[in-house]
């Protein structure tokens, strides 16, 4: 005689083929070695993204995307709605942690050369996910409609305007007009909660599918003795889970001790406060544009810098196809140095923004 629970199990198993799937996960193995630590950041990114989705959905309940009432609705969430302060702070804090985790994930993937065949497309989709989440950050930052966000967005979109040929058009499309105004807010909201999530689901789906089907790569040059294999379920999953709840605790502490501020309501007609800068993850580009001479030979400095970032981004995207040595399972010193220089450049420029704001 089968128990009640067994009956239910059989009903669903017959229709969903769960046991086949379970069989598959049982067989699945994950390599473990001295660099394994870095492999958890992918999972952390996924977890933070899930938090963003949940808190984002919750915030939609009370947030109103119009210049008249956006700031007031955030104020309302922070003061009147029970635990509104928590939900909003979690959303803001984990957004920042997410961007940080993506950068760590990306550079660890780079230095461990996990992009070698057959995982080139995992790298490419990952690169696009980075761009998408930067766009999430950029659009989300404006939504509270406070003074700092307003002017930081103005600076940010001014940069878009420098891009040759399409710059002005792109800027007008983003801002809903020639300059940032009350019309900008609904657009950013639309991009933030509809356009980007849709694209994310597609690309993230491919990214995760590739990770599952291809499995995790083993760094070049590790001998068989140095690499163990552990079962994906439950060993690796439990470890992932441990990392996730530690991050959860960290977010909780950040939110209680440093609730995200509301600031002052944006006034499109006020003059910009001094020392305005974008969110930290854009500052390395922002500072580069700020300190570059206005003319280099006969080209405008800003345009040259933008072109540089474009070429740099393209190079970064195509890394798996350019690094011929990695394709032959060899470590390339050249690519190591290039990656290191890019990392140092980003760190130095970011530090310069905060420690030498007058530069």
């Amino acid at each position, binding site marked *: 005689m089968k128990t009640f629970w067994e009956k239910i199990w059989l009903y669903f198993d017959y229709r969903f083929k769960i046991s086949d799937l379970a069989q598959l996960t049982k067989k699945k193995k994950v390599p473990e070695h001295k660099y394994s630590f870095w492999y958890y950041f992918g999972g952390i990114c996924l977890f933070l993204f899930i938090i963003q989705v949940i808190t984002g959905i*919750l915030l939609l309940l009370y947030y*109103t995307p119009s210049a008249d009432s956006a700031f*007031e609705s955030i104020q*309302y969430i922070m003061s*009147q709605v*029970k*635990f509104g302060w*928590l939900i909003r702070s979690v959303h803001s804090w984990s957004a920042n942690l997410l961007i940080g985790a993506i950068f760590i994930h990306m550079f660890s993937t780079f230095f461990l050369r996990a992009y070698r065949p057959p995982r080139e497309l995992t790298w490419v989709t990952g690169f696009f996910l980075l761009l998408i989440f930067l766009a999430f950050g950029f659009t989300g930052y404006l939504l509270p409609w406070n003074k700092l966000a307003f002017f930081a967005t103005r600076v940010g979109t001014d940069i878009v305007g420098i891009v040759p040929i399409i710059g002005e058009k792109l800027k007008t499309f983003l801002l809903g007009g020639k300059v940032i105004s009350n019309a900008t807010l609904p657009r950013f909201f639309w991009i933030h909660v509809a356009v980007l999530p849709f694209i994310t689901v597609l690309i993230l789906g491919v990214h995760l599918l590739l990770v599952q089907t291809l499995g995790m790569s083993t760094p070049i040059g590790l001998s068989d003795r140095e690499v163990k294999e552990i079962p994906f379920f439950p060993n690796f999953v439990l470890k992932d889970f441990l990392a996730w*709840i530690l991050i*959860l605790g960290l977010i909780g502490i950040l939110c209680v001790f440093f609730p995200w501020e509301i600031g002052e309501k944006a006034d499109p007609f006020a003059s910009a406060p001094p020392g305005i800068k974008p969110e930290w993850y854009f500052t390395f580009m922002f500072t580069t544009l700020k300190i570059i001479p206005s003319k280099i030979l006969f080209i405008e400095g800003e345009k040259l810098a933008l072109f540089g970032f474009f070429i740099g981004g393209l190079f970064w995207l195509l890394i798996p196809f350019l690094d011929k040595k990695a394709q032959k399972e060899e470590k390339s010193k050249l690519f190591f140095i290039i990656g290191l220089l890019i990392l140092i450049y980003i760190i130095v420029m970011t530090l310069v923004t905060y420690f030498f704001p007058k530069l």
Partner: protein
Amino acid sequence: MKRRRFIDFLLGGGIAGTIITFLYPVLKYIWPPKQSEVIVKSVVAGKINELAPNTYKIFKFGSSPGILINTKEGELKAFTAVCTHLSCTVTYDGDTETIFCPCHNGRFDLKGNVISGPPPRPLEAYNVEIVGEKILVSKRT
């Protein structure tokens, strides 16, 4: 075997506890709050017929007070109630039909201009709109 069961118990309890501590704020969050509306740029300063002619009331406009006046002729006017001299809250003096600051006897006319006393600048006037029963006051843009 015993140890294993203990760990499973701990694991289950931990998961359950964590879920509850996270579910609690979320459930509280989605429940409608006491003040069930967002207060926006225009503020409900009062109801029509609430003010007799030649009287006034102070209302909250954002984070500062505003003054709503029903003139002798029955016209509704609204201004910031923050005196431009030392930020005292002004009142309306029906006798002289002027806005009056009790701190240093500053006086403003019903356009907000300074008539006498130390205030260096006029009072900012707001827009008044009547929607149904409500008197809505908003900033002039």
